[in-house]
Protein backbone atom coordinates (compact mmCIF):
# COMPACT_ATOMS: atom_id res chain seq x y z
CA UNK A 1 0.00 0.00 0.00
CA UNK A 2 3.01 2.31 0.23
CA UNK A 3 2.65 4.98 -2.41
CA UNK A 4 5.54 7.00 -1.16
CA UNK A 5 8.12 6.64 1.53
CA UNK A 6 7.32 8.90 4.44
CA UNK A 7 10.66 8.32 6.13
CA UNK A 8 12.24 10.42 3.38
CA UNK A 9 10.41 13.39 4.85
CA UNK A 10 12.08 12.89 8.20
CA UNK A 11 10.14 10.08 9.89
CA UNK A 12 6.46 9.49 10.40
CA UNK A 13 3.83 12.17 10.60
CA UNK A 14 1.44 12.04 13.55
CA UNK A 15 2.85 8.63 14.41
CA UNK A 16 1.21 6.90 11.42
CA UNK A 17 3.38 5.18 8.79
CA UNK A 18 0.80 4.04 6.26
CA UNK A 19 0.05 6.97 3.92
CA UNK A 20 -3.49 5.62 3.29
CA UNK A 21 -4.30 5.83 6.98
CA UNK A 22 -2.50 9.12 7.54
CA UNK A 23 -4.24 10.44 4.44
CA UNK A 24 -7.71 9.43 5.58
CA UNK A 25 -7.09 10.77 9.10
CA UNK A 26 -6.28 14.16 7.58
CA UNK A 27 -9.05 13.88 4.97
CA UNK A 28 -11.65 13.32 7.68
CA UNK A 29 -10.57 16.47 9.48
CA UNK A 30 -10.28 18.43 6.22
CA UNK A 31 -13.75 17.36 5.05
CA UNK A 32 -15.21 18.62 8.34
CA UNK A 33 -13.31 21.88 7.78
CA UNK A 34 -14.74 22.00 4.24
CA UNK A 35 -18.22 21.83 5.77
CA UNK A 36 -17.32 24.64 8.17
CA UNK A 37 -15.84 26.79 5.39
CA UNK A 38 -18.80 26.21 3.09
CA UNK A 39 -21.24 27.03 5.85
CA UNK A 40 -19.46 30.27 6.74
CA UNK A 41 -19.04 31.47 3.15
CA UNK A 42 -22.68 30.75 2.28
CA UNK A 43 -24.15 31.69 5.67
CA UNK A 44 -26.60 34.19 4.23
CA UNK A 45 -27.04 32.81 0.74
CA UNK A 46 -29.95 30.74 -0.53
CA UNK A 47 -32.77 32.45 1.35
CA UNK A 48 -33.81 34.79 -1.48
CA UNK A 49 -36.98 32.89 -2.40
CA UNK A 50 -38.04 32.54 1.19
CA UNK A 51 -40.72 35.28 1.44
CA UNK A 52 -42.74 34.04 -1.53
CA UNK A 53 -42.42 30.41 -0.39
CA UNK A 54 -43.70 31.33 3.03
CA UNK A 55 -46.66 33.14 1.43
CA UNK A 56 -47.47 30.04 -0.63
CA UNK A 57 -47.07 27.84 2.40
CA UNK A 58 -49.45 29.91 4.50
CA UNK A 59 -52.16 29.70 1.87
CA UNK A 60 -51.52 25.96 1.53
CA UNK A 61 -51.80 25.48 5.28
CA UNK A 62 -55.08 27.40 5.32
CA UNK A 63 -56.40 25.07 2.60
CA UNK A 64 -55.20 22.02 4.52
CA UNK A 65 -56.82 23.15 7.76
CA UNK A 66 -60.15 23.87 6.09
CA UNK A 67 -59.98 20.48 4.34
CA UNK A 68 -59.37 18.76 7.66
CA UNK A 69 -62.21 20.65 9.24
CA UNK A 70 -64.51 19.63 6.42
CA UNK A 71 -63.48 15.96 6.37
CA UNK A 72 -63.18 15.37 10.07
CA UNK A 73 -65.87 17.80 11.13
CA UNK A 74 -63.50 19.40 13.64
Amino acid at each position, binding site marked *: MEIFELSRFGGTMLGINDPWILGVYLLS*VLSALLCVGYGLVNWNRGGEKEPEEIRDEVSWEKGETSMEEKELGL
Partner: protein
Amino acid sequence: MDILLLNIIVLVYILAVGYLGYRGWRETCNSSDYMVAGRKIHPYVMAMSYGATFISTSAIVGFGGTAGLFGMGLLWLTFLNIFVGIFIAFVVFGKRTRKMGYNLSAMTFPELLARRFDSRFIQYFSGLVIFLGMPMYASVVLIGAARFIETTLAINFDLALLFFSVIIAAYVVLGGLKGVMYTDALQATIMFVGMAFLLLMTYSHLGGIAAAHQALTDLAPLVPANLAAMGHLGWTAMPASGSAWWWTLISSLVLGVGIGVLAMPQLVVRFMTVKSGRELNRAVLIGGVFILMMTGVAFVVGALSNVYFVQHDSVIAIAAASGNSDSIIPVYINRAMPEWFVYVFMLTLLAAAMSTLSSQFHAQGTAVGRDVYETLVGVRGGRSILITRIGIIIAVVVAVILGYLLPPSIIAPGTAIFFGLCAAAFLPMYACALFWKRATRAGAIAGLVTGTFVSLFWLVFVHQKEAVPLGIAKMILGRDVLISAMPWPVVDPIVVALPLAFLVTVAVSLATQPPKAEHVEKCFEGIE
Protein backbone atom coordinates in the same frame (compact mmCIF):
# COMPACT_ATOMS: atom_id res chain seq x y z
CA MET B 1 -21.19 3.07 40.52
CA ASP B 2 -24.10 4.80 42.21
CA ILE B 3 -27.26 3.32 40.68
CA LEU B 4 -29.49 5.84 42.45
CA LEU B 5 -27.57 8.82 41.06
CA LEU B 6 -27.59 7.30 37.58
CA ASN B 7 -31.34 6.70 37.77
CA ILE B 8 -31.87 10.32 38.81
CA ILE B 9 -29.74 11.60 35.89
CA VAL B 10 -31.70 9.42 33.46
CA LEU B 11 -34.99 10.59 34.96
CA VAL B 12 -34.04 14.25 34.50
CA TYR B 13 -33.07 13.48 30.92
CA ILE B 14 -36.37 11.67 30.25
CA LEU B 15 -38.27 14.65 31.68
CA ALA B 16 -36.39 17.00 29.33
CA VAL B 17 -37.20 14.72 26.40
CA GLY B 18 -40.83 14.62 27.54
CA TYR B 19 -40.98 18.41 27.63
CA LEU B 20 -39.58 18.72 24.08
CA GLY B 21 -42.01 16.05 22.86
CA TYR B 22 -44.82 18.07 24.45
CA ARG B 23 -43.63 21.22 22.66
CA GLY B 24 -43.68 19.31 19.38
CA TRP B 25 -47.24 18.24 20.12
CA ARG B 26 -48.33 21.79 21.03
CA GLU B 27 -46.90 23.16 17.80
CA THR B 28 -48.45 20.51 15.54
CA CYS B 29 -51.61 21.74 13.85
CA ASN B 30 -51.70 19.98 10.46
CA SER B 31 -50.18 17.14 8.48
CA SER B 32 -47.35 19.34 7.18
CA ASP B 33 -46.32 19.97 10.82
CA TYR B 34 -46.64 16.30 11.65
CA MET B 35 -44.66 14.95 8.67
CA VAL B 36 -42.20 17.65 7.62
CA ALA B 37 -42.18 19.77 10.80
CA GLY B 38 -44.03 22.59 9.03
CA ARG B 39 -40.95 23.17 6.79
CA LYS B 40 -39.69 25.81 9.23
CA ILE B 41 -37.06 24.05 11.33
CA HIS B 42 -34.02 25.96 12.63
CA PRO B 43 -30.73 24.93 10.94
CA TYR B 44 -29.16 23.89 14.29
CA VAL B 45 -32.08 21.59 15.05
CA MET B 46 -32.09 20.25 11.49
CA ALA B 47 -28.34 19.48 11.42
CA MET B 48 -28.23 17.97 14.90
CA SER B 49 -31.35 15.93 14.24
CA TYR B 50 -29.91 14.64 10.96
CA GLY B 51 -26.66 13.75 12.72
CA ALA B 52 -28.28 12.09 15.71
CA THR B 53 -30.55 10.02 13.46
CA PHE B 54 -27.57 9.06 11.31
CA ILE B 55 -25.45 7.96 14.29
CA SER B 56 -26.90 5.18 16.42
CA THR B 57 -25.41 3.38 19.38
CA SER B 58 -24.03 0.74 17.05
CA ALA B 59 -22.03 3.37 15.13
CA ILE B 60 -20.28 4.31 18.37
CA VAL B 61 -20.08 1.03 20.27
CA GLY B 62 -20.29 -1.56 17.46
CA PHE B 63 -18.15 0.12 14.83
CA GLY B 64 -15.90 1.68 17.49
CA GLY B 65 -15.26 -1.87 18.71
CA THR B 66 -14.55 -2.98 15.14
CA ALA B 67 -11.92 -0.23 14.98
CA GLY B 68 -10.51 -1.62 18.24
CA LEU B 69 -10.22 -4.98 16.51
CA PHE B 70 -9.03 -3.90 13.04
CA GLY B 71 -7.70 -0.37 13.47
CA MET B 72 -7.95 3.02 11.84
CA GLY B 73 -8.81 1.78 8.33
CA LEU B 74 -12.39 2.40 9.40
CA LEU B 75 -11.68 6.13 9.16
CA TRP B 76 -12.50 5.79 5.45
CA LEU B 77 -16.04 5.39 6.65
CA THR B 78 -15.78 8.61 8.68
CA PHE B 79 -14.46 10.44 5.66
CA LEU B 80 -17.40 9.23 3.54
CA ASN B 81 -19.85 9.94 6.39
CA ILE B 82 -18.74 13.57 6.35
CA PHE B 83 -18.00 14.15 2.68
CA VAL B 84 -20.87 12.13 1.19
CA GLY B 85 -23.24 11.85 4.17
CA ILE B 86 -23.09 15.55 5.00
CA PHE B 87 -21.44 17.69 2.33
CA ILE B 88 -22.73 16.00 -0.84
CA ALA B 89 -26.00 15.07 0.85
CA PHE B 90 -26.79 18.62 1.98
CA VAL B 91 -25.27 20.74 -0.77
CA VAL B 92 -25.89 18.59 -3.85
CA PHE B 93 -28.93 16.47 -2.93
CA GLY B 94 -30.46 18.39 -0.02
CA LYS B 95 -31.09 21.72 -1.72
CA ARG B 96 -32.79 20.14 -4.72
CA THR B 97 -34.75 17.77 -2.50
CA ARG B 98 -36.03 20.67 -0.42
CA LYS B 99 -37.07 22.67 -3.46
CA MET B 100 -38.62 19.78 -5.35
CA GLY B 101 -40.38 18.55 -2.22
CA TYR B 102 -41.81 22.03 -1.86
CA ASN B 103 -42.82 22.29 -5.54
CA LEU B 104 -44.64 18.96 -5.34
CA SER B 105 -45.99 19.40 -1.77
CA ALA B 106 -44.37 16.09 -0.86
CA MET B 107 -44.37 15.06 2.79
CA THR B 108 -42.45 11.79 2.70
CA PHE B 109 -39.51 10.45 0.70
CA PRO B 110 -41.65 7.96 -1.28
CA GLU B 111 -44.18 10.73 -1.94
CA LEU B 112 -41.45 12.96 -3.39
CA LEU B 113 -40.36 10.20 -5.78
CA ALA B 114 -43.92 9.21 -6.63
CA ARG B 115 -44.95 12.77 -7.50
CA ARG B 116 -41.77 13.41 -9.45
CA PHE B 117 -42.48 10.36 -11.62
CA ASP B 118 -46.24 10.61 -11.39
CA SER B 119 -46.65 7.03 -10.19
CA ARG B 120 -48.69 5.66 -7.30
CA PHE B 121 -46.86 2.35 -7.59
CA ILE B 122 -43.58 4.04 -6.64
CA GLN B 123 -45.17 5.46 -3.50
CA TYR B 124 -46.70 2.28 -2.10
CA PHE B 125 -43.89 -0.03 -3.24
CA SER B 126 -41.27 2.27 -1.64
CA GLY B 127 -43.47 2.58 1.45
CA LEU B 128 -43.60 -1.22 1.66
CA VAL B 129 -39.81 -1.57 1.27
CA ILE B 130 -39.38 0.89 4.16
CA PHE B 131 -42.07 -0.64 6.33
CA LEU B 132 -40.88 -4.22 5.81
CA GLY B 133 -37.12 -3.52 5.76
CA MET B 134 -36.90 -1.19 8.72
CA PRO B 135 -38.35 -3.19 11.65
CA MET B 136 -35.31 -5.45 11.93
CA TYR B 137 -33.03 -2.41 11.88
CA ALA B 138 -35.22 -0.73 14.50
CA SER B 139 -35.28 -3.77 16.76
CA VAL B 140 -31.46 -4.02 16.62
CA VAL B 141 -31.27 -0.53 18.09
CA LEU B 142 -34.14 -1.21 20.50
CA ILE B 143 -32.62 -4.42 21.85
CA GLY B 144 -29.23 -2.71 22.21
CA ALA B 145 -30.81 0.08 24.22
CA ALA B 146 -32.84 -2.30 26.40
CA ARG B 147 -29.76 -4.44 27.13
CA PHE B 148 -27.90 -1.28 28.02
CA ILE B 149 -30.66 -0.15 30.42
CA GLU B 150 -30.74 -3.65 31.90
CA THR B 151 -27.02 -3.66 32.69
CA THR B 152 -26.58 -0.06 33.78
CA LEU B 153 -29.81 0.81 35.57
CA ALA B 154 -30.38 -2.70 36.91
CA ILE B 155 -33.85 -2.96 35.38
CA ASN B 156 -35.20 -6.28 34.02
CA PHE B 157 -34.64 -6.59 30.22
CA ASP B 158 -38.28 -7.22 29.28
CA LEU B 159 -39.39 -4.31 31.41
CA ALA B 160 -36.66 -2.09 30.00
CA LEU B 161 -37.68 -2.93 26.44
CA LEU B 162 -41.31 -2.13 27.13
CA PHE B 163 -40.65 1.01 29.18
CA PHE B 164 -38.21 2.41 26.63
CA SER B 165 -40.57 1.73 23.69
CA VAL B 166 -43.51 3.36 25.44
CA ILE B 167 -41.50 6.55 26.12
CA ILE B 168 -40.34 6.86 22.52
CA ALA B 169 -43.74 5.92 21.12
CA ALA B 170 -45.38 8.61 23.26
CA TYR B 171 -43.36 11.51 21.95
CA VAL B 172 -43.22 10.30 18.35
CA VAL B 173 -46.96 9.57 18.15
CA LEU B 174 -47.97 12.84 19.79
CA GLY B 175 -45.22 15.23 18.68
CA GLY B 176 -44.75 14.03 15.09
CA LEU B 177 -41.59 15.13 13.31
CA LYS B 178 -41.37 18.31 15.39
CA GLY B 179 -41.29 16.25 18.59
CA VAL B 180 -38.73 13.92 17.01
CA MET B 181 -36.45 16.73 15.82
CA TYR B 182 -36.58 18.80 19.02
CA THR B 183 -35.66 15.78 21.12
CA ASP B 184 -33.03 14.79 18.55
CA ALA B 185 -31.34 18.17 18.94
CA LEU B 186 -31.09 17.71 22.71
CA GLN B 187 -29.84 14.16 22.30
CA ALA B 188 -27.26 15.22 19.70
CA THR B 189 -25.94 17.94 22.01
CA ILE B 190 -25.44 15.37 24.78
CA MET B 191 -23.71 13.03 22.29
CA PHE B 192 -21.40 15.82 21.10
CA VAL B 193 -20.28 16.73 24.60
CA GLY B 194 -19.75 13.07 25.55
CA MET B 195 -17.64 12.24 22.50
CA ALA B 196 -15.59 15.45 22.70
CA PHE B 197 -14.57 14.59 26.27
CA LEU B 198 -13.79 11.03 25.27
CA LEU B 199 -11.39 12.21 22.58
CA LEU B 200 -9.65 14.79 24.74
CA MET B 201 -9.17 12.43 27.65
CA THR B 202 -7.93 9.56 25.47
CA TYR B 203 -5.27 11.67 23.74
CA SER B 204 -4.15 13.33 26.96
CA HIS B 205 -4.03 9.95 28.71
CA LEU B 206 -1.75 8.52 26.02
CA GLY B 207 0.66 11.47 25.83
CA GLY B 208 -0.73 13.50 22.90
CA ILE B 209 -1.80 12.83 19.31
CA ALA B 210 1.51 11.80 17.70
CA ALA B 211 2.72 9.84 20.74
CA ALA B 212 -0.55 7.92 21.00
CA HIS B 213 -0.54 7.04 17.29
CA GLN B 214 3.14 6.05 17.39
CA ALA B 215 2.47 3.73 20.31
CA LEU B 216 -0.39 2.16 18.33
CA THR B 217 1.83 1.80 15.24
CA ASP B 218 4.41 0.01 17.37
CA LEU B 219 1.84 -2.60 18.41
CA ALA B 220 1.69 -4.14 14.91
CA PRO B 221 3.67 -7.27 15.92
CA LEU B 222 0.93 -8.08 18.45
CA VAL B 223 -1.73 -8.73 15.75
CA PRO B 224 -3.07 -12.27 16.46
CA ALA B 225 -2.41 -14.89 13.79
CA ASN B 226 -6.10 -15.41 12.93
CA LEU B 227 -6.57 -11.69 12.22
CA ALA B 228 -3.30 -11.49 10.29
CA ALA B 229 -4.64 -14.29 8.08
CA MET B 230 -7.65 -12.06 7.28
CA GLY B 231 -5.32 -9.30 6.08
CA HIS B 232 -4.75 -7.35 9.35
CA LEU B 233 -1.36 -5.59 9.09
CA GLY B 234 -1.54 -3.43 12.23
CA TRP B 235 -3.89 -0.83 13.74
CA THR B 236 -2.48 2.11 11.78
CA ALA B 237 -2.19 0.27 8.46
CA MET B 238 -4.66 -0.61 5.70
CA PRO B 239 -5.43 -4.35 5.43
CA ALA B 240 -3.63 -6.32 2.71
CA SER B 241 -5.25 -5.59 -0.70
CA GLY B 242 -7.74 -8.25 -1.78
CA SER B 243 -7.82 -9.94 1.63
CA ALA B 244 -11.14 -10.87 3.26
CA TRP B 245 -11.00 -7.92 5.67
CA TRP B 246 -10.06 -5.54 2.85
CA TRP B 247 -13.17 -6.54 0.88
CA THR B 248 -15.40 -6.25 3.91
CA LEU B 249 -13.96 -2.86 4.79
CA ILE B 250 -14.24 -1.44 1.32
CA SER B 251 -17.49 -2.97 0.09
CA SER B 252 -19.68 -3.27 3.19
CA LEU B 253 -18.50 -0.59 5.50
CA VAL B 254 -17.25 2.10 3.21
CA LEU B 255 -19.59 1.73 0.23
CA GLY B 256 -22.62 0.20 1.94
CA VAL B 257 -22.79 2.45 4.96
CA GLY B 258 -20.93 5.43 3.50
CA ILE B 259 -22.86 5.80 0.23
CA GLY B 260 -26.08 4.08 1.30
CA VAL B 261 -26.81 6.94 3.64
CA LEU B 262 -27.72 9.21 0.72
CA ALA B 263 -31.01 7.40 0.19
CA MET B 264 -32.13 6.74 3.77
CA PRO B 265 -35.78 7.87 3.92
CA GLN B 266 -35.60 9.11 7.52
CA LEU B 267 -32.65 11.36 6.61
CA VAL B 268 -33.90 12.58 3.22
CA VAL B 269 -37.16 13.79 4.77
CA ARG B 270 -35.16 16.21 6.93
CA PHE B 271 -34.15 18.25 3.88
CA MET B 272 -37.83 19.04 3.45
CA THR B 273 -38.13 20.47 6.96
CA VAL B 274 -36.25 23.74 6.38
CA LYS B 275 -37.61 26.85 4.73
CA SER B 276 -34.76 27.67 2.33
CA GLY B 277 -31.37 26.69 0.97
CA ARG B 278 -29.81 29.12 3.44
CA GLU B 279 -30.75 26.87 6.36
CA LEU B 280 -29.04 23.96 4.60
CA ASN B 281 -25.89 26.05 4.08
CA ARG B 282 -25.78 26.73 7.79
CA ALA B 283 -26.63 23.16 8.70
CA VAL B 284 -23.65 21.83 6.68
CA LEU B 285 -21.29 23.57 9.07
CA ILE B 286 -22.84 21.97 12.14
CA GLY B 287 -23.37 18.55 10.54
CA GLY B 288 -19.76 18.15 9.36
CA VAL B 289 -18.28 18.86 12.76
CA PHE B 290 -20.88 16.70 14.50
CA ILE B 291 -20.17 13.59 12.41
CA LEU B 292 -16.40 14.01 12.82
CA MET B 293 -16.99 14.07 16.57
CA MET B 294 -19.10 10.92 16.38
CA THR B 295 -17.60 8.27 14.11
CA GLY B 296 -14.18 9.94 13.87
CA VAL B 297 -13.79 9.90 17.64
CA ALA B 298 -15.31 6.42 18.04
CA PHE B 299 -12.91 4.89 15.51
CA VAL B 300 -9.77 6.68 16.72
CA VAL B 301 -10.54 5.93 20.38
CA GLY B 302 -11.53 2.33 19.55
CA ALA B 303 -8.19 1.75 17.84
CA LEU B 304 -6.21 3.59 20.55
CA SER B 305 -7.81 1.52 23.30
CA ASN B 306 -5.28 -1.15 22.28
CA VAL B 307 -2.45 1.08 23.53
CA TYR B 308 -4.20 1.58 26.87
CA PHE B 309 -4.85 -2.13 27.38
CA VAL B 310 -1.32 -3.15 26.37
CA GLN B 311 0.20 -0.56 28.73
CA HIS B 312 -2.02 -1.52 31.67
CA ASP B 313 -2.89 -5.20 31.21
CA SER B 314 -0.34 -6.34 28.58
CA VAL B 315 -3.17 -7.54 26.30
CA ILE B 316 -4.74 -6.07 23.15
CA ALA B 317 -8.27 -4.62 23.25
CA ILE B 318 -10.11 -7.65 21.91
CA ALA B 319 -8.51 -9.85 24.56
CA ALA B 320 -9.39 -7.32 27.28
CA ALA B 321 -13.00 -7.47 26.04
CA SER B 322 -13.02 -11.30 26.27
CA GLY B 323 -13.18 -11.71 22.51
CA ASN B 324 -16.35 -9.64 21.96
CA SER B 325 -15.61 -6.53 19.90
CA ASP B 326 -18.91 -4.92 21.03
CA SER B 327 -17.50 -4.80 24.56
CA ILE B 328 -14.27 -2.98 23.67
CA ILE B 329 -15.65 0.56 24.02
CA PRO B 330 -17.68 -0.09 27.22
CA VAL B 331 -14.75 -1.94 28.86
CA TYR B 332 -12.37 0.84 27.86
CA ILE B 333 -14.68 3.55 29.26
CA ASN B 334 -15.11 1.67 32.52
CA ARG B 335 -11.39 1.06 32.92
CA ALA B 336 -9.75 4.20 31.59
CA MET B 337 -12.21 7.02 32.27
CA PRO B 338 -13.12 8.74 35.56
CA GLU B 339 -16.40 7.65 37.15
CA TRP B 340 -18.31 10.85 36.36
CA PHE B 341 -17.58 10.27 32.68
CA VAL B 342 -19.16 6.82 32.83
CA TYR B 343 -22.47 8.53 33.65
CA VAL B 344 -22.03 11.05 30.82
CA PHE B 345 -21.21 8.30 28.37
CA MET B 346 -24.22 6.24 29.37
CA LEU B 347 -26.44 9.21 28.72
CA THR B 348 -24.66 9.66 25.38
CA LEU B 349 -25.50 6.09 24.37
CA LEU B 350 -29.09 6.37 25.55
CA ALA B 351 -29.46 9.59 23.54
CA ALA B 352 -27.91 7.95 20.45
CA ALA B 353 -30.32 5.02 20.61
CA MET B 354 -33.40 7.13 21.25
CA SER B 355 -32.72 9.63 18.47
CA THR B 356 -32.21 6.88 15.89
CA LEU B 357 -35.27 4.92 17.01
CA SER B 358 -37.65 7.86 17.11
CA SER B 359 -36.89 8.70 13.48
CA GLN B 360 -37.19 5.07 12.42
CA PHE B 361 -40.62 4.84 13.99
CA HIS B 362 -41.70 8.11 12.42
CA ALA B 363 -40.44 7.02 8.96
CA GLN B 364 -42.21 3.67 9.25
CA GLY B 365 -45.41 5.32 10.43
CA THR B 366 -45.50 7.73 7.50
CA ALA B 367 -44.56 4.87 5.13
CA VAL B 368 -47.41 2.62 6.15
CA GLY B 369 -49.94 5.39 6.80
CA ARG B 370 -49.36 7.97 4.13
CA ASP B 371 -47.50 5.98 1.47
CA VAL B 372 -49.13 2.56 1.57
CA TYR B 373 -52.58 2.91 3.11
CA GLU B 374 -53.59 6.31 1.76
CA THR B 375 -52.16 5.63 -1.70
CA LEU B 376 -53.88 2.27 -2.05
CA VAL B 377 -57.19 3.40 -0.59
CA GLY B 378 -57.06 6.67 -2.48
CA VAL B 379 -57.81 8.91 0.52
CA ARG B 380 -55.80 12.10 0.89
CA GLY B 381 -55.49 14.82 3.42
CA GLY B 382 -57.83 14.91 6.37
CA ARG B 383 -56.99 11.73 8.24
CA SER B 384 -53.25 11.75 7.45
CA ILE B 385 -52.12 12.44 11.00
CA LEU B 386 -54.43 9.85 12.54
CA ILE B 387 -53.43 7.14 10.05
CA THR B 388 -49.74 7.94 10.49
CA ARG B 389 -50.12 7.76 14.27
CA ILE B 390 -51.67 4.32 13.93
CA GLY B 391 -48.77 3.41 11.58
CA ILE B 392 -46.23 4.50 14.19
CA ILE B 393 -47.93 2.42 16.88
CA ILE B 394 -47.86 -0.61 14.55
CA ALA B 395 -44.13 0.01 13.89
CA VAL B 396 -43.35 0.19 17.62
CA VAL B 397 -45.35 -2.95 18.38
CA VAL B 398 -43.63 -4.87 15.54
CA ALA B 399 -40.17 -3.74 16.72
CA VAL B 400 -40.95 -4.80 20.31
CA ILE B 401 -42.29 -8.20 19.20
CA LEU B 402 -39.22 -8.74 17.00
CA GLY B 403 -37.09 -7.63 19.96
CA TYR B 404 -38.57 -10.44 22.07
CA LEU B 405 -38.57 -13.09 19.35
CA LEU B 406 -35.55 -12.78 17.10
CA PRO B 407 -32.35 -14.64 17.95
CA PRO B 408 -29.19 -12.48 17.99
CA SER B 409 -27.78 -14.20 14.89
CA ILE B 410 -30.68 -12.98 12.73
CA ILE B 411 -30.77 -9.54 14.31
CA ALA B 412 -27.17 -8.63 13.59
CA PRO B 413 -27.56 -8.45 9.78
CA GLY B 414 -30.71 -6.32 10.19
CA THR B 415 -28.89 -3.03 9.78
CA ALA B 416 -26.88 -4.17 6.78
CA ILE B 417 -29.98 -5.46 5.02
CA PHE B 418 -31.79 -2.15 5.38
CA PHE B 419 -28.83 0.01 4.37
CA GLY B 420 -28.13 -2.14 1.31
CA LEU B 421 -31.80 -2.23 0.31
CA CYS B 422 -32.22 1.53 0.61
CA ALA B 423 -29.15 2.29 -1.43
CA ALA B 424 -29.94 -0.10 -4.29
CA ALA B 425 -33.70 0.46 -4.37
CA PHE B 426 -33.89 4.22 -3.92
CA LEU B 427 -30.58 5.86 -4.82
CA PRO B 428 -30.74 5.45 -8.64
CA MET B 429 -34.33 6.69 -8.80
CA TYR B 430 -33.66 9.49 -6.31
CA ALA B 431 -30.51 10.72 -8.09
CA CYS B 432 -32.26 10.63 -11.49
CA ALA B 433 -35.33 12.38 -10.03
CA LEU B 434 -33.17 15.30 -8.91
CA PHE B 435 -30.63 15.55 -11.71
CA TRP B 436 -31.97 14.03 -14.91
CA LYS B 437 -35.05 15.54 -16.51
CA ARG B 438 -35.17 12.81 -19.15
CA ALA B 439 -35.70 10.03 -16.53
CA THR B 440 -39.09 8.40 -17.03
CA ARG B 441 -41.64 6.69 -14.84
CA ALA B 442 -40.90 3.31 -16.44
CA GLY B 443 -37.16 3.80 -15.89
CA ALA B 444 -37.66 4.72 -12.25
CA ILE B 445 -39.93 1.73 -11.60
CA ALA B 446 -37.58 -0.67 -13.41
CA GLY B 447 -34.61 0.59 -11.34
CA LEU B 448 -36.59 0.41 -8.09
CA VAL B 449 -37.68 -3.17 -8.70
CA THR B 450 -34.23 -4.27 -9.96
CA GLY B 451 -32.42 -2.68 -7.01
CA THR B 452 -34.82 -4.21 -4.48
CA PHE B 453 -34.77 -7.74 -5.82
CA VAL B 454 -31.09 -8.00 -6.80
CA SER B 455 -30.23 -6.72 -3.34
CA LEU B 456 -32.51 -9.23 -1.63
CA PHE B 457 -31.23 -12.08 -3.83
CA TRP B 458 -27.61 -11.20 -3.00
CA LEU B 459 -28.37 -10.97 0.72
CA VAL B 460 -30.20 -14.29 0.80
CA PHE B 461 -28.00 -16.34 -1.53
CA VAL B 462 -24.54 -14.79 -1.95
CA HIS B 463 -23.37 -12.50 0.87
CA GLN B 464 -22.18 -14.88 3.57
CA LYS B 465 -22.77 -12.56 6.52
CA GLU B 466 -26.54 -12.50 5.95
CA ALA B 467 -27.04 -15.68 3.90
CA VAL B 468 -25.66 -18.01 6.60
CA PRO B 469 -27.75 -16.74 9.55
CA LEU B 470 -30.87 -16.44 7.36
CA GLY B 471 -30.39 -20.06 6.24
CA ILE B 472 -32.65 -19.76 3.18
CA ALA B 473 -29.82 -20.61 0.74
CA LYS B 474 -29.00 -23.68 2.80
CA MET B 475 -32.63 -24.76 2.74
CA ILE B 476 -33.07 -24.34 -1.03
CA LEU B 477 -29.60 -25.01 -2.45
CA GLY B 478 -28.22 -27.28 0.25
CA ARG B 479 -25.19 -25.03 0.73
CA ASP B 480 -24.47 -21.84 2.65
CA VAL B 481 -23.88 -19.58 -0.34
CA LEU B 482 -24.44 -19.81 -4.10
CA ILE B 483 -20.84 -18.95 -5.08
CA SER B 484 -18.20 -19.98 -2.60
CA ALA B 485 -15.18 -18.75 -4.62
CA MET B 486 -13.54 -15.66 -3.10
CA PRO B 487 -14.20 -12.77 -3.04
CA TRP B 488 -17.96 -13.17 -3.77
CA PRO B 489 -19.13 -14.29 -0.31
CA VAL B 490 -17.65 -11.09 1.18
CA VAL B 491 -18.71 -8.68 -1.59
CA ASP B 492 -21.52 -6.45 -0.33
CA PRO B 493 -24.83 -6.42 -2.28
CA ILE B 494 -24.42 -2.69 -2.94
CA VAL B 495 -21.43 -3.33 -5.23
CA VAL B 496 -23.62 -5.38 -7.57
CA ALA B 497 -27.18 -4.14 -7.05
CA LEU B 498 -26.54 -0.40 -7.12
CA PRO B 499 -24.72 -0.16 -10.49
CA LEU B 500 -27.20 -2.62 -12.01
CA ALA B 501 -30.19 -0.62 -10.80
CA PHE B 502 -28.60 2.58 -12.13
CA LEU B 503 -28.00 0.97 -15.51
CA VAL B 504 -31.57 -0.33 -15.73
CA THR B 505 -33.01 3.08 -14.74
CA VAL B 506 -31.03 4.87 -17.44
CA ALA B 507 -31.55 2.22 -20.16
CA VAL B 508 -35.31 1.92 -19.64
CA SER B 509 -35.67 5.73 -19.44
CA LEU B 510 -33.90 6.14 -22.76
CA ALA B 511 -36.04 3.43 -24.35
CA THR B 512 -39.33 5.02 -23.26
CA GLN B 513 -41.16 8.24 -24.12
CA PRO B 514 -39.76 11.32 -22.32
CA PRO B 515 -41.99 12.69 -19.55
CA LYS B 516 -44.36 15.62 -20.25
CA ALA B 517 -42.45 18.89 -20.41
CA GLU B 518 -44.92 20.79 -18.21
CA HIS B 519 -44.70 18.21 -15.43
CA VAL B 520 -40.88 18.30 -15.49
CA GLU B 521 -41.02 22.08 -15.44
CA LYS B 522 -43.23 22.06 -12.37
CA CYS B 523 -40.89 19.65 -10.57
CA PHE B 524 -37.78 21.70 -11.41
CA GLU B 525 -39.28 25.16 -10.85
CA GLY B 526 -36.65 27.32 -9.18
CA ILE B 527 -33.93 24.66 -9.59
CA GLU B 528 -31.11 25.65 -11.94
